[in-house]
């Protein structure tokens, strides 16, 4: 009960911080409060958000997936190369890209479960491997000239709303429903909370872990296609370092980095907070280094404060893992 109380209050804290960040942004730049601009700005955070949804499950299991941004780049590079250099129809090339991204995720999952390797090590390796593969495929050039039906997915709208932002919201609801309303989601939570106990109660811990890594890979691949369409180009160095933004959103959202506790609304609120802060600070011409510092302080505080709360409540502080 107590833990649940803390989680609720964490989301409440995020809401308050969003409100503060919003008001500060309005105060700092008179151009901030423009709905059309704000809606356009959301499209820059969709890939991070979609990958963060899948990453929430990975971290819930007490694992980590550092390879998502590299997987994104490889999917874009592979689909782009198949289409541009081998003359494959674009939809087919994209499907192959997606399959490869899922296989890469599957491989991560199998290495973690079968060889009992720490996911940090496994995905650190695949992060380098997938990025390297993208670079080998595409070299230091860009693939461009996509047909009109494919390019500029961020420009598609439903009424005033960008379609990819709506998609992120729908995906978030679906992810939340899977986590809290399905047996599979409950089993994932149980596995994250106590692996041994979950195994004893007949849950196939390995199958769940493999599946979660596979979905994380597939989601990264899908984001690769979105980014390829959004910027109208495929390059090997797309989204470099983006895995850290993704993990930041998840952890800031209240998902325990040690596993066992996850919150999809928390991840989304954290993403909104980061988006408001970055957009507001960018408009106010605050340089990116300072933006990083601000988000970093927020992340450190979001980990430290729950521990302080626990200590005040007379519980043991959780050691950082």
């Amino acid at each position, binding site marked *: 009960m107590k833990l649940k109380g803390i989680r609720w209050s964490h989301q409440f804290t995020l809401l308050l911080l969003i409100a503060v960040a919003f008001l500060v942004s309005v105060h700092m*730049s008179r*151009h901030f409060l*423009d709905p059309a*601009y704000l809606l*356009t*700005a959301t499209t*820059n955070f969709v890939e991070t958000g979609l990958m963060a949804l899948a990453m929430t499950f990975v971290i819930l299991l007490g694992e980590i997936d550092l390879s998502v941004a590299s997987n994104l780049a490889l999917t874009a590079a592979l689909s782009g190369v198949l289409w541009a250099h081998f003359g494959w129809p674009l939809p087919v090339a994209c499907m192959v890209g997606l399959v490869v991204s899922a296989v890469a995720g599957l491989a991560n999952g199998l290495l973690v479960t079968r060889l009992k390797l720490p996911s940090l090590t496994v995905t650190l390796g695949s992060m380098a491997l997938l990025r390297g593969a993208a670079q080998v495929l595409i070299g230091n050039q*860009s693939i*461009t000239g996509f047909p009109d*039906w*494919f*390019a*500029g*997915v*961020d*420009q*598609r*709208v*439903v009424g005033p709303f*960008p*379609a*990819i932002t709506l*998609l992120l919201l*729908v995906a978030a609801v679906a992810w939340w429903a899977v986590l809290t309303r399905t047996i599979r989601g409950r089993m994932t939570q149980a596995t994250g909370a106590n692996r041994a106990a979950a195994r004893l109660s007949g849950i196939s811990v390995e199958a769940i872990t493999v599946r979660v890594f596979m979905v994380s890979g597939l989601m990264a691949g899908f984001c690769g296609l*979105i*980014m390829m*369409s*959004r*910027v*109208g*180009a495929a*390059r090997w*160095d*797309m*989204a*470099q*370092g983006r895995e850290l933004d993704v993990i930041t959103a998840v952890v800031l959202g209240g998902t325990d980095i040690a596993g066992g506790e996850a919150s999809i609304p928390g991840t989304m609120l954290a993403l909104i907070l980061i988006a408001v802060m*970055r*957009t507001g600070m*960018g*408009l106010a*011409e605050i*340089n*990116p*280094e300072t*933006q*990083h510092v601000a988000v970093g302080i927020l992340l450190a505080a979001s980990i430290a404060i729950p521990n302080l709360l626990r200590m005040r409540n007379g519980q043991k502080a959780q050691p950082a893992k």
Partner: protein
Amino acid sequence: MSLNRMVIAAAAAAAMTAFLWGCKPKTTAVTVAAPVTGTVRVCYIPKNTGNPYFDAVNNGFTQASSALHFKYTEQAPATADATDQIPIIQQQVQDGVNVIAISPNSPEALDPAIRAAEQHGVRVITIDADLTGSEQLRSACVLPTDFNKLGASQIELIGSLMGYTGDFAILSATTDAPNQNAWIAGMKVALKLPKYAGMHLVEIAYGNDDPQKSLLEAQSLMTKYPHLKGILSPTTVGIAAAAQAVETGGAAGKVQVTGLGTPNQMRRFVLDGTVKKFALWDPAQMGYTAGYLAYGLARGTIHPAAGVSFTAGTEGIRVFGTNNVISNGPLMVFNKSNIGQYHF
């Protein structure tokens, strides 16, 4: 996963994709950039932050802005990621800037953002690198120097150091670097001139722009050719490595080293006499020229077209070439007497 579930998942994914790519694109009203009558606002977006080269470009801009009294800011992305410049472009457009000057990290990935900026009546110019293939999206481009003349000027530089006679070698980057190969081709053409008839190019070595490999290549050149009088390295990594090799080999004065280098890297070798002179473009001049160009575009006093010219303050006349490209002045030659003034 059962077959039914897989069908459901596949159907959901297909519906999602159909929805996403099936929606209609947003229609944007196009604003034509009119001459600015109030304060002109210019923003420069370099490739990344904390790079002395772009800091120098920024200094040039600042000089131009204080001379012409326009409001100038620099907004640098934290990393040189192809997509990191996109939100900055959007923010500057939203902030009502008149001209965006950008050193693009990836030409193609910025096309949509730059197109959107132009549609909002913001003029865009490129600096140091261009939007190759999409030149119509920006108003004009300022490049560091006329690269077609670079090879010939490098030969003159090494020739003057070795008295136009004797053996010399070239230390390049990688065998397939397009810039390097174009410049080396230019050098070979220049070598056919009677003035350089006494000079013999004995070898072109490749150090892959890796300090260690470049050092080894330079050392082996000196061993292989005992009468070597010069090493010409048109790459900043190579020239520093060659200078290092000559210094540690005690061959200063016997083997001349020159090429393209940055003052910060070469300062030590110039001050201790290992290297007499070397060249590079001055990024500050480029920023200064771009500042004058940006201001003139905003005020409506410069209309870029091939052959049209304008005056860039103390730098003098600049002329637009094909695709509205301006090649900034000739290379700057650095030596013991002037290197103290440059910090990039």
